[in-house]
């Protein structure tokens, strides 16, 4: 038994070559259970091949036909530059853009003048973090964020560190939520900005944004939140929450890709240094022509999201419960990552113990799923979000994210659950670790030899 495990591991060690982190990973116990570890190969579907069903609504969402319908006229006939003030082409584009701005503002209870169109949430996050930090750098040199933020927030903070700023990366509790007392202790007199995401993209937990907002306001610190995964799905109100900056993405709410928005509070005024200089569009915060069709699409997506929020949320909750219940009732040792209560139900992150996530993804080739965020899905490294919530290394390796959205059907959920149960059982039967667990051996007590 043991020798089989060792042989597999040796084999894997040679297969994976010399890359440091991967070698470490093959040395962990769980990978011994794997015979076929290779990164999933990309290929195009054959003409008559059936398409996998889509269960990755956190990565991106299909565009709602109502959104496309609103955009098409601006891709076809109304091509004017919305900043042209001298002719009808410009005016019609401008009024469409302003209508879209109002639709976005209404969804988060803001004033249209507080909305800046950007290319997406990544740009919005970069703009707010670098912008605020650099504008106030003469007096304030400290920024606070959390370890489970999106890559673009963490990387912006790294850049600021290189520029001489101090950054505190707050840890999160095992349920993925931050500790408010810890945040309060971390705030210093020279803290300019706190950035905490509303809904996490990997484990779906909802941070106590309202409490954080009130705390930051009382300490006179600006508060930025990345709400890309939250708006349109849960009610968002920037004045109730005392949010100063909020990032919004189009393609997470059934809108077009390549557009997003940033909410920048006017009273009390938040000032930021623009990243992009030029023609002075968008109050000088984001120069560059606003892409009218995309802005119209974002606006339409926001309006539809507002109308459909209750309906969608109810349905997503039912489908998510159905999926979790089906899987959990059929297979033991499945862990749901993140707080069970404070969460958005459409993002379910499950760890299947004794099964390696990538092999399960490969086995579930009929379902478009991911083990974490799309940005990091190419690497075999376990997700840093799961590490931050203190998941065991082997559990972090065996996690899969199920994304449920507006267009998901009961049949798709049932199919996914059924396939998942079948494949987990199959992979576990192949796993020497699972066999040992069944024999009552505590895996943690085993001393794996190092080579």
């Amino acid at each position: 038994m043991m020798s089989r495990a060792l042989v597999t591991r040796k084999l894997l060690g040679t297969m994976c070559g010399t890359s440091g982190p991967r070698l470490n990973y093959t040395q962990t116990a769980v990978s011994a259970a794997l015979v076929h570890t290779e990164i999933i190969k990309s290929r195009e579907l054959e003409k008559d091949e059936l398409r996998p069903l889509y269960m990755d609504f956190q990565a991106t969402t299909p565009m709602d036909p109502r959104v496309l319908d609103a955009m098409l006229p601006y891709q076809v006939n109304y091509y004017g530059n919305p900043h042209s003030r001298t002719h009808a082409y410009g005016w019609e584009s401008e009024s469409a853009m302003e209508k879209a701005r109002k639709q976005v503002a209404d969804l988060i209870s803001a004033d249209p003048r507080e909305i800046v169109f950007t290319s997406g949430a990544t740009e919005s996050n970069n703009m707010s973090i670098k912008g605020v930090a650099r504008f106030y750098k003469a007096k304030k040199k400290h920024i606070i964020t959390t370890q489970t933020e999106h890559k673009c927030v963490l990387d912006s903070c790294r850049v600021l560190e290189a520029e001489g700023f101090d950054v505190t990366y707050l840890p999160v509790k095992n349920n993925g939520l931050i500790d408010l007392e810890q945040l309060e202790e971390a705030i210093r007199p020279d803290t300019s900005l706190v950035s905490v995401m509303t809904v996490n993209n990997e484990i779906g937990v909802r941070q106590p944004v309202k409490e954080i907002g009130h705390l930051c306001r009382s300490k006179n610190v600006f508060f930025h939140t990345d709400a890309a995964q939250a708006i349109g799905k849960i009610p968002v109100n920037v004045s109730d929450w005392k949010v100063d900056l909020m990032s919004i993405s189009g393609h997470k709410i059934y809108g077009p890709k390549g557009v997003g928005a940033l909410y920048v509070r006017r009273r009390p005024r938040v000032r930021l240094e623009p990243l992009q200089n030029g023609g002075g569009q968008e109050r000088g915060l984001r120069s560059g022509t606003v892409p009218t069709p995309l802005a119209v699409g974002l606006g339409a997506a926001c309006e539809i999201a507002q109308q459909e929020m209750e309906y969608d949320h109810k349905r997503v909750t039912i489908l998510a419960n159905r999926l979790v219940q089906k899987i959990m009732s059929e297979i033991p040792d499945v862990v749901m990552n993140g707080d069970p209560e404070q969460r958005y139900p459409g993002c379910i992150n499950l760890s299947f113990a004794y099964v390696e996530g990538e092999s399960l993804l490969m086995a579930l080739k009929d379902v478009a799923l991911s083990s974490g965020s799309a940005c990091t899905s190419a690497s075999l490294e376990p997700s840093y979000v799961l590490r931050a919530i203190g998941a065991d290394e082997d559990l972090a390796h065996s996690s899969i994210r199920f994304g449920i959205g507006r267009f998901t059907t009961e049949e798709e959920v049932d199919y996914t659950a059924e396939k998942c149960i079948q494949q987990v059982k199959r992979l576990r039967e192949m796993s020497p670790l699972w066999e040992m667990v069944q024999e009552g051996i505590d895996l943690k007590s085993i001393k794996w030899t190092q080579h």
Partner: protein
Amino acid sequence: MASCGRSQVISLYRMLMKESRKFPSYNYRTYALRRIQDGFRANLHVDNPKTLDMLLSQARESLALIKRQVSVGQMYSTQKTIIEGNDQRGF
């Protein structure tokens, strides 16, 4: 008025369902059918003529939109999904 409204509602409902069945994409098609059914059911007991008028004009706009989007979808249709391959009920 009421009876006239009723026949209008039923005919609109039928047309919406008929058009929505033409969506080539499985997910758009099932969503449209489900949303139309649920939408009409939620407003089953509306008898205020003003609200009814508003809802009817919304439904007419939706019908036009669905017709346009069905054509777009048909122009760029793609492979069926695995669910349709297994599901013979034909939705």
